[in-house]
Structure formats: C-alpha cells, structure tokens
C-alpha cells in the first residue's frame, strides 16, 4: 500500500520537474530582447579569415553550364565568370569581355576579350578559351542549345578577339550569353576539352572569379578560397554579377545544413555567419533574435498549370473558369503570410527586372469572380469529372496553395482531388498527362522569354502548351532591335498568357535568408553573393 502511494508521489514530482524544465526553456525564448536588425553604418572594409554559410541544399554539380539549379548557381558564381553578365538592374554589361561590335546586318558579333585576366590555374585568358567555352555551352546548356540554332560559327580571330557569326539576325545573343541560368561560364580551353559533354569534375572547376574552388565534401561542405591574382573590373556601381568584385574573406565555407531551426540556432550561437532559405513562418522569430538580420530577395513565382493536352483543360472556357475561380490574394495570404513575402503582379517577369518587365497585358490576373466562373463552367465542356491536382510534398507552400485552391475550385463546381508526391516521384508523374490535370509549382526567376519553362511548347512543364501566337512572339523576340520593340513584344506576351491561360500565376515570391549583423555592405541579388561584403570584427 505504502509503495503505491510513494509511487504516485514520485510520478507527480517527476511530472512537476519536467514542466518546470520546459517552462524554463520557453521563457528564455520569450525573453530575448528585440535588438538587432537596424542597419548601422557599414564602416571600413576588413579582411577576415572564414565566412561560414549554412546552405540548405547540396548542389548536384558545380558546373553552372550544365544546370539551371539555384544551389549550383549560387556557389558557382563565386568561382566562374561570364563574357557578359547582368548588372544590378538586370541590364547586360560586359564582364570578361572588354566590349563588342556588331555589323550592319546584325549577323556578325566581334567581341573583345579583356587582356591579362588570369584563371585559377595561373594561365591567362585568351580568345581560344572563350571559343571552347562557348562551344561546350552550346552542347550542354539548355540555353546554349537554343542559342546555337542561330549560330553559324564561333572563331578566335586574334589573341583577344572572338567572332560569332549568326545564321540570321538574332538579337537575344548577348542576353543568352549573360543569362545566369545554365550559364556561359568561361573556362580554360583544355578544361572544356577534357570535360566534354560531362559535368565538370572537381579538378576541372577552374574559373576567373574572385574565389577559387578548394574542396567539396559531398553532403557536408564546399570550400572556396580567395583568388589572390583576381583581375577585377573597375566599375563600382554595376553590381549584379559584374563590375568590381573584391573578396574580403580568405575562405568561404558553404556548409550543408538542411534544418532551418538548426540554421537559426547556429546563427544565434555564432556557428554560422549566414543562413540560407528560412521558412517565412519564422520571420517573427528572426525579427526578435538579437544580432541576426533578415535578408529578403525576389525569387520567381508560384503557378498553377493545367494539362492542356486533354479534357477538361483543353477547353479555354474551363481554363477561364479556373482563373476566375481562384482568389490569388487569399491564396497568397494563406501561403506566404506577411505581405513582405509576396507581390501580386500578373506579368511574366518581375518589376526588378527593369528591361524585361512590362506592367501591361495582364488585366485578368486579379479577376476573381465566383459567379462568372460558375457561368463559364456551365457553358464549358466540363462534365463534372474529378480534377487531379498534383504537387510536390517537399514544399509546404505548394501544399498550402493546393489546399486553398481546392476549396475555391469546389465553390464554383469543380470536383477536386489533391495528390502529393515527393519531388523525385513528382518529376516522373509529371511526364504523363494521365497522372494530372493541374500542377502547383514554383519557378525561379528567369532572364529571357526563351527560358520560361512554363511556356516551352509541348512538354510537361508547360502542360503541353501549343500556341502559334506564342511561338510567333518568341521569333519576334529574337528579331527585335530596340528596347522599345522588346517592351512591345513583352506586353504582347503578357497579353497572350492572359488570353490563352497556359498557366495561372499566383504571386511573385520573396525569399528569406538570415545573416549575423556583423556582415556589412551585404545585398542579395537573385541569390547569395559574398564579394564586396565583409565581416566586422
């Protein structure tokens, strides 16, 4: 009897102790004062030993020509440079090129290569290297393959001069050369030859960038070291991926850390200096953490894409009903929370991309109208079949979009079933129209109409979109000579998507990173760039 009583007592004591322990931990969290975040004076630049970046995903390769994936890009642009590159406003500027000339009928580009630029292996950049790099890019890069349908030949005409001869005028040439996606990186000719059409191996990672590749322990860390012989440009105000780049770190460690909570805790305790990709739900926690600053930057947009190869979405009326049924504002609010992290804009490019953005032609983007949607659906060929809405379970955001969209679609009379797959499975299921009617998917920022994956004719990523009107605009884009003409075409492109509804845009996205407040003069541009920034002592 006594022992039972004792037992009860002990259980109670243990329980109380546990509760006190938990309360102590959570109190600590709530008591953290709200300092930090204020942007102080950047002060004088200082060189420091190591920058530790907690990076959320391990790239498949560091060959930036081979893939358009952001993890590859964000590490690779510290190592490699391009002939031309985008500046802060997404305008094309020379990088390893000195300048260029084009002949009168716009079929011959003569590009001057900067003299005395050194590769990480000590060799000096020549026109031969540029030619070899361009040719390899034409074979392996998704952008390069398209560009090469317009190119007749690429030749080195002297030590520092390259000529690109075109089959017919193609005015996107420099834009393609400068696109930071499956990019035209300049590597030594012998490396290009050795690598061939395979991704660059670690021993081939030789570029001209401010940091040189040091080592890569897969799944653990990628280390780049400051390149002492870096040949910098002089322009201080270009930004983006060109202009003057100064490395203030002797080494940068990109450490693969997948759990955002670990990243945040690591920053709090000084284990990392920078953390990539924090869920926006943690925004308030970040704001209340001392010595940790939020870093936000634009990062593409989310879409819902219908399968247009078969019923019901081969009927434009069903697509119109879909568009009017979706209240994008509500979806975006539910998905991204604070207005800081989304932007309602129907254009194909985002406003920051000054040269590519047209605010016209997307009038039906926010045309939420339940009654109209019901009416259109009744008039359409939709026969009450259940729509399969497919998305990748790896993104909580896709899940939220799908949930809210389901509710809105059911309100106007669609029948909806949600199906989520893990990413690799998703990619395979995507390839067969029988598996889905709608997919929820996000697209990273693109730099040319040629690269809009959700509009590439007749493949799964566009839901088998086929449109003479769009294809014609892509041809016109290649022929446009002035910025004005391009703007007109861009407006017409917006209008085409607005009318034909190959996909429904939800919202532009802003991504959240975090950094310690010791990192000064830092700005994200598309992704993480660690030149011209330093860590205060």
């Amino acid at each position, binding site marked *: 009897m006594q*022992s039972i009583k*004792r*037992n009860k007592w*002990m*259980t109670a*004591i*243990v329980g109380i102790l*546990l509760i006190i*322990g*938990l309360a*102590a*931990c959570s109190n*600590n*969290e709530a008591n953290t004062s709200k300092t930090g975040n204020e942007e102080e004076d950047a002060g004088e630049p200082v060189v420091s030993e190591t920058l530790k970046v907690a990076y959320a995903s*391990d790239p*498949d*390769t560091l060959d930036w020509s081979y*893939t*358009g*994936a952001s993890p590859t890009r964000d590490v690779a642009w510290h190592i490699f440079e391009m002939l031309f590159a985008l500046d802060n406003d997404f305008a094309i500027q020379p990088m390893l090129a000195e300048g260029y000339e084009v002949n009168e009928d716009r079929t011959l580009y003569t590009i001057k290569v900067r003299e005395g630029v050194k590769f990480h292996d000590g060799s000096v950049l020549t026109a031969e290297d540029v030619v070899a790099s361009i040719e390899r890019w034409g074979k392996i890069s*998704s952008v390069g393959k398209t560009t090469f349908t317009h190119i007749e030949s690429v030749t080195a005409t002297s030590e520092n001069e390259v000529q690109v001869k075109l089959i017919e005028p193609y005015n996107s040439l420099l834009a393609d050369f400068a696109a930071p996606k499956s990019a035209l990186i300049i590597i030594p000719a012998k490396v290009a030859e050795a690598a061939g059409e395979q991704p660059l*191996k670690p021993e081939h990672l030789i570029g001209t960038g401010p940091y040189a590749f040091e080592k890569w*322990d*897969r*799944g*653990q860390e990628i280390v780049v070291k400051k390149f002492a012989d870096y040949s910098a440009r002089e322009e201080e105000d270009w930004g983006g991926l060109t202009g003057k780049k100064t490395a203030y770190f002797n080494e940068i460690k990109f*450490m*693969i*850390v*997948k*759990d955002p*909570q*670990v990243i945040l*805790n*690591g920053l*709090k*305790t000084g*284990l990392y200096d920078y953390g990539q990709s924090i869920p926006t739900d943690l925004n308030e926690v970040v704001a209340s953490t001392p010595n940790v600053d939020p870093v936000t930057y634009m990062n593409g947009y989310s879409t819902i894409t219908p399968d247009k190869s078969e019923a019901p979405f081969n009927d434009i009326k069903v697509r119109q009903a879909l568009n009017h049924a979706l209240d994008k504002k509500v979806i975006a609010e539910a998905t991204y929370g604070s207005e800081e992290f989304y932007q309602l804009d129907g254009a194909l490019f985002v406003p920051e991309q000054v040269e590519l953005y047209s605010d016209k032609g997307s009038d039906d983007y926010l045309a939420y109208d339940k009654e109209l949607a019901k009416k259109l659906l009744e008039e359409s060929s939709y026969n009450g079949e259940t729509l399969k809405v497919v998305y990748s379970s790896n993104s909580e955001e896709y899940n939220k979009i799908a949930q809210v969209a389901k509710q809105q679609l059911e309100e106007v009379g669609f029948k909806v079933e949600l199906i989520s*797959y*893990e*990413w*690799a*499975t*998703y*990619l*395979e*299921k995507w*390839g067969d129209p029988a598996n889905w009617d709608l997919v929820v*998917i996000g*697209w990273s920022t693109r730099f040319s109409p040629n690269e809009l*994956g*959700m509009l*590439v004719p007749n*493949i*799964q*990523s566009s839901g088998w979109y086929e449109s003479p009107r769009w294809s014609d605009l892509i041809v016109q884009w290649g022929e446009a000579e002035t910025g004005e003409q391009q703007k007109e075409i861009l407006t017409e492109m917006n209008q085409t998507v607005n009318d034909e509804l190959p996909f429904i845009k939800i919202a532009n996205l802003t991504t959240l990173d975090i950094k310690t407040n010791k990192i000064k003069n830092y700005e994200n541009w598309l992704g993480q760039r660690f030149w011209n920034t330093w860590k205060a002592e």
Partner: protein
Amino acid sequence: MLQYTIRRLFSLIPVMFIVSIIVFMIIHLTPGNPAHLILGEDASEESIKQLEEQLGLDQPVVMQYVNWVKDIVTGDFGQSVYSSEPVLDIIIGRLGPTFSITIVSIIMILVISIPIAIAAVWKRNTLIDPLFISISLLGVSIPEFWFAMLLVLGFAVSIPLFPVAGYIPMADGIFQWLYHLILPSFVLAAVEIGLVARMLRDGMLESVNQDYIRTARAKGVKESIVLMKHVFSNALIPTTTVIGAMVAGLLGGTVIIETMFTIPGMGQLLVDSIYRRDYPIIQGVILFIAVVYVIVNLLVDLLYTFLDPRIRYD
C-alpha cells in the same frame, strides 16, 4: 567455436543475397529516377532519355541487378550517379561520424544504466526504485527528435554549453570530437538507457531472492559483493541480448540524429541518396548495414560463452 564462427560468417552470403534483391527491387519500383532530378523541371523528354541511357537506366531491371551483383563479387560497389566517386569510398568516408555517435552513446548507456540499475536493486524498498521506474518510462516514451530539440534549446542556445550542430573528426582533436558528440549521443542514448537499465534491474530482482543468493548472504558476504558478484553477473545474459539488438537500432536512430545535428554520417547519406535516387549508394549503404547487423549478432552470441561458461557452441 572457430567452426561455429566460420559457419556463421558463411551464413552472411544468403542473407546478403536476399537483402540485395529486396533493396534493389524496392528502390527500382519506387517512381522517380536520377535523370529527372539532374535535368530539373523544364527538361525535355529527349534529354531525359539520353541521360537515362548514359546512366544505364534504360536497361531491364533484371539486367541492371545482374550487372550490379557481378560487380560486387569483384569488389566494385559502383559509383555515385552524381559525383562518380566509388560507393565504397563514400561509405568509408561516412563511417567515422556514425560509429563515433554509436560508440559514444553505447558508452553513455552502459555508464549510466548499470549503476542506476544496481542502485535501484540495492535500494529496492526505498524511493529510488519508483523514481527510477518513472524516469526510465519517460526516457523510453520521449520522441527522439523532440528531445533533441529540447536539449539543443536548453544546452546549446539558452545556456550555450555545447555546439548546436556539426561534427569534428577525431583526428582534428579528441576533445573537440567528444564535445560535438555529447548532445547527439545523449539523445540517441536516452531511449536505450531506460530500456537497458530496466532489463538489468528486472534480471537482478529475479535472482535477488534465489536460494544461492540467500546462501551467500548467510555465509556473511557483504550485500555489495552479493549484488555485484552473484546478482549482477546473472542479469548480464538477457542484457547483452538487448544491447546487441540495440546496436542495430542505434544505427537506425542515427538517421534522425544526424539530420538534426548536421552530422555527415551514414544515416544522412542514406536519406540524401534516397531523395536523389542515387541507387548505387542506397544499395551499398543498406548492404553495409545488413553486414554490421549480422556481425554484431554474431559477436553477441560469442560473448555469451564468456559471460556464461555453461553455453557452448561445439
């Protein structure tokens, strides 16, 4: 004994064979393949087919299996689809962290659970025993990931005693190595400490009132010696069985712990490779874990003969 060991080692062959078939079938029946993943969202069907051919994924699954087994027999476990590094090298590179956590947590389990169990039996009519039962129940019931988060919050963030994550190889300093392993190993050990301690306590309680123990006491042997020499050693056999099974469990548990503490071990390698459909690595790691499992069980069986000379295998 030697014969027995050799026989047991030979039994590895059919086990490996069955494991290899099951693993191979499961991962090849799972949808998704590396070609899709490497080429990304807007890849054309044609380029995917091309890459599949390059990777040999266009061949019938049976052919792929036969080729793989043929290579293994010659000691070649294949290459990672992504990095082209040999699978064996990759696995060897990841062994250190996983074995480190496993060994440190086994030591923690033994060092903590044995004295606790002895104390509980020794003071079996006092407060200590029910307290022990409550805590060990708590230990067994706590989900690992939650406990890990709690410990990190408490002892790495609020009171920064330990690092929140990371791993330092032993070669870079034994203190740093241990320092980084304490939290993750403790989380891994927590569940098992309760289990092992209870196993020991129950085994000891069973024999504590047996005739030979009473005889020992009647001879005037001190209670502490009775407990250690007679009671404790009799509880060792069932406990060893539990510990043997536990080692395999720990290897599985490291999957979660390694992710939560960003420790580059086998668990993380396995999870990453599954997400990436890096078939050769998945196959290699699972085969490896199966081998470890079989060998640990063999060692446990051999250990019995030392713990209890009455057990013989010849």
